[in-house]
């Protein structure tokens, strides 16, 4: 997976210095939470639903080997073909192989985080294939040669004006205004229709795999994924092994959580189940259907104390509610997966050395956990990653020293009290006149953008004890 997470702080600072780009994020950070809240209130017992789906997924993950076998049997019964990939390179190689066997030159792609993770597009293009992303947001960033900045709204960082400029330069369609979002969408519809019609292979992701019947669930509002799944003669579904659910009804329960958490809709415009190639008598549909199931460390995560992270259904709610994501933007994370879920998943899929800044990109506010439909204890997992960072000595030296000193002091309460009492008296004297402290030794960086209110001369404990003495 392409990664640039150790540049997080620089990128975040750059992003925050560009208000025109942060406007969309700020709007998302208000509107999507509001829409989600309204949808949940209308639903009623959302917590009950959340717990029920969590239990089903936990059950499925606990017996993933058996459900994978059941899924595989049904895939074959449906007339589809099943492939496996241990890592990204293998995923790309399997897909390339299928395309080569069909002498494919043109691919129509639906949105798939797994293929982003594997860098599939680059691998296909390097082999000379033409790949067209058909989800509008993905199409926009593909045309702009950029990466997604949100897992659901990939072109969030682009303004309407920028998209207009992009279409005017990319599409040779003569003079036109393109002054409205509707006209931009109309043009994308017209341009991409040709890609759907000529594609040799359609590649889509999956929102869930159903063990009892070998089906794959696809959830979209645009219908582009369904066009990719039905028009080209070959269909490839790329997803990860942990997506398996036992029954259709489990997928439907999850669907109720997913769409409300993503956009606040009760259901997506298109909710489809794909199982196999054309049957006798069918007038359309793919002649061949393939599943490529990726591991890429999911089996390791399953066996670890981070297995709850596999419950993630990629709704994006944690991103929408995270003050760090809204402030810094998705590109700052330098990973396919940004925001709170990305800050846990990225180190697990790559390494802490390469991405240790991400678990630290957290205020501990806990909103992510509150809104997560999969009930993932994100703040706990982030904290556990920070603890691992510390124990593996990845944390910067001065922080390790500071944390070690603090821990030692905290284990010696009387000494802790004595040291902090001195510190308070000094800080009180330094800041008494202005009422705020703008600089302190060892805290210059932190106080560069913050004012610390001058503390009182005595700590709470000291005041409590002295007033208790007076009462006696």
């Amino acid at each position, binding site marked *: 997976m392409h990664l640039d997470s150790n540049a997080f702080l620089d990128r975040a600072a750059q992003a925050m210095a560009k208000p025109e780009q942060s406007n969309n994020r700020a*709007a*998302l950070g208000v*509107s999507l939470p509001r829409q989600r809240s309204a949808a949940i209130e*209308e*639903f*009623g*017992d959302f917590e*009950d*639903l959340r*717990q*029920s789906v969590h*239990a*089903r997924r936990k059950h499925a993950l*606990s*017996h*993933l*080997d*058996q459900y*994978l*076998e059941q899924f*595989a049997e049904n895939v074959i019964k449906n007339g589809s073909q*099943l492939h*496996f990939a*241990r890592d990204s390179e*293998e995923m790309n190689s399997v897909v390339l192989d299928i395309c080569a066997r069909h002498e494919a030159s043109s691919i129509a792609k639906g949105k798939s985080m797994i293929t982003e993770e594997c860098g599939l597009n680059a691998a296909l293009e390097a082999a000379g294939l033409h790949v067209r992303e058909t989800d*509008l947001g993905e199409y926009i960033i593909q045309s702009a040669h950029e990466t997604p900045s949100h897992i659901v709204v990939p*072109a*969030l960082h682009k303004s*309407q004006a920028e*998209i207009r400029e992009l279409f005017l330069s990319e599409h040779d369609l003569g003079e036109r205004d393109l002054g409205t*979002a509707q006209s931009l*969408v109309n043009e994308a*519809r017209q341009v991409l229709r040709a890609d759907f*019609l000529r594609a040799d292979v359609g590649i889509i992701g999956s929102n869930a795999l159903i063990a009892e019947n070998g089906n794959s669930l696809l959830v979209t*509002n*645009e*219908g582009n994924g*369904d*066009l990719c*799944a*039905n028009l080209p003669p070959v269909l490839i579904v790329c997803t990860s*092994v942990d997506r398996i659910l036992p029954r*259709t*009804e489990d997928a*439907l329960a999850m669907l*109720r959580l997913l769409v409300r958490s993503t956009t606040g809709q*009760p*259901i*997506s*415009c298109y909710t*489809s*189940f794909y*199982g196999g190639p054309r*049957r006798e008598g*069918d*007038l*359309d549909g793919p002649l061949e259907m393939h599943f490529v199931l990726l591991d890429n460390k999911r*089996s390791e995560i*399953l*066996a670890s104390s981070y297995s709850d992270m596999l419950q993630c259904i990629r709704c994006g709610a944690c991103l929408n509610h995270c003050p760090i994501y809204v402030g810094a933007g998705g590109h700052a994370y330098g990973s396919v997966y940004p925001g709170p879920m990305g800050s846990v998943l990225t180190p697990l899929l790559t390494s802490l050395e390469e991405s240790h800044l991400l678990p630290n990109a957290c205020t501990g506010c806990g909103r992510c956990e509150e809104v997560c439909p999969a009930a993932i204890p994100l703040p706990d997992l982030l904290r556990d990653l920070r603890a691992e960072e510390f124990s593996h000595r990845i944390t910067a030296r001065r922080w390790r020293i500071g944390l070690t000193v603090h821990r030692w002091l905290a284990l010696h309460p009387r000494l802790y009290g004595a040291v902090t009492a001195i510190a308070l008296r000094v800080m009180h004297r330094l800041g008494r006149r202005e009422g705020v402290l703008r600089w302190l030794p060892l805290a210059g960086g932190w106080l560069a953008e913050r004012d610390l209110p001058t503390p009182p001369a005595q700590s709470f404990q000291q005041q409590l004890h002295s007033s208790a003495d007076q009462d006696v």
Partner: protein
Amino acid sequence: MFDEAGREILARLRHASRRSNAASVREELASLPEAGAAPLLADSLSLAFLARVIRNGGSCTVADGRRGTVDAIGAFVSMRHGQRRVVCGHDPRLAALPWRDAGLLPRFGAAEDGDPVAVSYARAAVAETGSVLLWLDRDNPASNNLLVEDHVVIVAEKNLVGRLEQAMAEPRYAAAETRPRACMLISGPSSTADIEMQLVVGAHGPRCWHVILVGQSLNAALVDRARELADR
């Protein structure tokens, strides 16, 4: 079934799994807590369904029989396109409609790029979400749901159910021999919010999604009530 990579992945998953026997896995699954569905917008399934369709950005009308159905299709098609051509799948219920009585000229088959209107007959419809269920097969090719500008879907009132699970619980769906290769639950016209989160209709699929609910005792007042309910 499992290639070399698959066997390796399966082995790793077995190592991480709880390794219970199949019977106890089935028992555990059966004991898991049920989940509720979204509340219906009204006690009447028809009213609840139509209100959701409207809220989802669809349009709707009702008909009391076959003649009313083709009249409704005719009115919609001529209003939207000023012509009377439609394409339909081979669903026998579509073939049985008195198209000529409404001056309509259906072509039976799969829609092609450029066809303005397709008419489908839903397998079932769901009041909880305002969705229509369409199996993708000879009776209703996928292209008819996706390639056209306007998609008209006929729903028989007797095929209306309360919640999603009921629509997917048909016995023919459970068996591999009778299950279609795919099915779609459609709950609105194609839409996107990818441009500064503005909701725009007609992304890649149909711009207009028109539902005709057919039942003996249905009348136009129901649609008015559904509109009021949808607006609340």
